[in-house]
């Protein structure tokens, strides 16, 4: 109470004393206000996907409020989840992603171990080279790679173009460099005493890797796995270039090439497909957010 009276008597002094906590309170309110605005901006497209996916085509083309579902229906989900074609895309995507994750881990974990612990001629250069490779975008390589695989097909008769398994060769170029790079960072942070003790106890290099490094660096391994999965699930350019038959397509390309027929857009089904295509990464993210973010920030902070 007394403070209030002082406030009236000498306003200038009061402002000085109370200003820090009051400033904080206002800063907090403004922070929440802007965060809400940004959250609306960031979440509008996914929410709108969900809204549209629950509408019938009649309601989509009706002149009603597009932000609200008046007659929710699951007909789009039923149509897609019972269509063999769509299930085929989902299946292709899942198979490709699982294989790519396995291949990536089999290549990058031993390589990262070798580069971070066992020096050999040119290993430092190779570590930098790995990082540089990560910086080369796929948009630079898709044309020569396309021609390369066409030439291989002509010479050996092994048809790689327009087969889903060509993606198993292509995707590791996107996932392996980054995974190796972040695994080098995680392995380098393991104290040297740990593997020296193992070597003294008579463990081979392979045992040191499987018994010590992999268990200790498990969080990094999970982060790298999530990264490899998300990249191979989301990749759009390579499947668009290398696969064309509808039974060889993966999710993103399949949705775009089959659901858009000429100028006829079946928006209900497109949005449903997009939402189902976005679901696996979103589910992984919802449950393993900390690993996801660790992997995301590791590339730049651990280097």
């Amino acid at each position, binding site marked *: 109470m007394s403070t209030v009276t002082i406030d009236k008597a000498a306003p200038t002094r009061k402002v000085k004393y109370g200003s820090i906590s009051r400033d904080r309170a206002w800063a907090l309110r403004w*922070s929440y206000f*802007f*965060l809400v605005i*940004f959250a609306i901006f*960031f*979440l*509008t*497209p*996914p929410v*709108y*996907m969900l809204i*549209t996916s629950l509408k019938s085509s009649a309601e989509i083309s009706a002149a009603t409020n*597009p932000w609200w579902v008046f007659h929710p229906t699951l007909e789009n989900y039923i149509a897609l989840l019972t269509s063999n074609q769509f299930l085929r895309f989902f299946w292709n995507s899942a198979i490709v992603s699982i294989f790519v994750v396995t291949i990536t881990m089999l290549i990058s974990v*031993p*390589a990262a171990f070798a580069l971070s612990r066992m*020096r*050999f*001629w040119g*290993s430092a250069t*190779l570590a*930098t*080279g790995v*990082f540089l*490779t990560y*910086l*080369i*975008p*796929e*948009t*630079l*390589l898709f*044309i*020569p*790679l396309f*021609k*390369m695989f066409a030439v291989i097909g002509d010479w050996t008769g092994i048809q790689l173009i327009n087969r889903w398994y060509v993606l198993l*060769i292509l995707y*590791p*170029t996107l996932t392996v*460099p980054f995974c190796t790079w972040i695994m080098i960072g995680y392995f380098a942070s393991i104290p040297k005493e740990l593997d020296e003790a193992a070597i003294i106890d008579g463990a081979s*290099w392979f045992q040191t890797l499987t018994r010590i490094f992999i268990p200790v660096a498990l969080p990094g391994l999970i982060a790298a796995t999530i990264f490899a999965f*998300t990249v191979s699930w*989301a990749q*759009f*350019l390579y499947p668009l*270039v290398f696969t064309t038959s509808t039974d060889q397509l993966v999710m*993103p390309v399949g949705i*775009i090439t089959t659901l858009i027929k000429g100028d006829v*857009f079946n*928006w209900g089904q497109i*949005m449903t497909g997009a*939402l189902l*295509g*976005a679901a696996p990464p*979103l589910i992984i*993210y919802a449950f393993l*957010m900390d690993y996801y973010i660790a992997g995301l*920030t590791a590339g*730049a902070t651990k*280097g």
Partner: protein
Amino acid sequence: MADVVLQPNRAATSKTVGKRGSLHKMLKRKSTVAFLMALPLILLIATLVIYPAFYALHLATLNKSMSRFVGLGNFEFLFKRETFWLVVQQSCIFAITAVIFKAVLGFIIAHFVHNIPAKGQRKWRGMLLVPWVIPPAMSTLAWLWLFDPSYSAFNYTLSFFGIGPIPWTGDAYWARFSVILVNIWVGAPFFMIMYLAALKSVPDQLYEAAAIDGANWWQRIWYVTLPMMRNIIAITTLFSLIVTFANFDIVRILTAGGPLDHTHIFATWAFRIGIEGSDIPLGASVSLFMVPILAVAAIFILRDISKRGNEA
């Protein structure tokens, strides 16, 4: 001296040649094991990254049917085409504007998230990272639907404010705005996460000291936060510049380069020419124009990494 040095060498060679298990021994040596462990990685990079990169250089010197060497003919042809200069211009506008806005938005959002009590930060961070998690091809479809010429949900909302229907992807300049907007939407959360991690590493004492010295919020950002975050800002911006410059998904799905080739960037135009137009050499030449900017960015990033390596 030379003899002394040579002596053990010769002895060693004769010993290894003499022993039956020399190969076995070599295989057990640390550096050999390490090399074998890294061999798949080396092979992958050599055959699927380095070789195609040089193959692109070779392809760029051939004529359309790839039967004749034309030297720099493809480049001469490109320089004479108006569309090419449009693509160069748009690529630069697209990458630079998008990266600046992503960096600024990411910085602002990171500050707001950092400001609120630690308990709620996880929730907000999780929510704000969603655009980065959704595959860009899928989220761009949602944007395409939001921009739809006849059923645009944005135009529906704007009509209440008396703002006329905006041709989001129909008009050349609005289409440029739209592709940049979507790119910012996808990329800003990445900056936010990076900056948030960097903000957490700035010691509180610095802000307390600045507050005691009477610094206002702007001075605190300018003299404390920014210098402390300089490294992370630089590296994130360079990363994003590379990725944005080489972007494909967003432009391809949203506008496919149109209207009138005004939103084409190098990657989408190379795809249009090289794959859809099946002029592989010309497409390869177009995509090669991404190399200079990538090289510059890579040099800066490498310098930063080696500097950090020396500090450690």
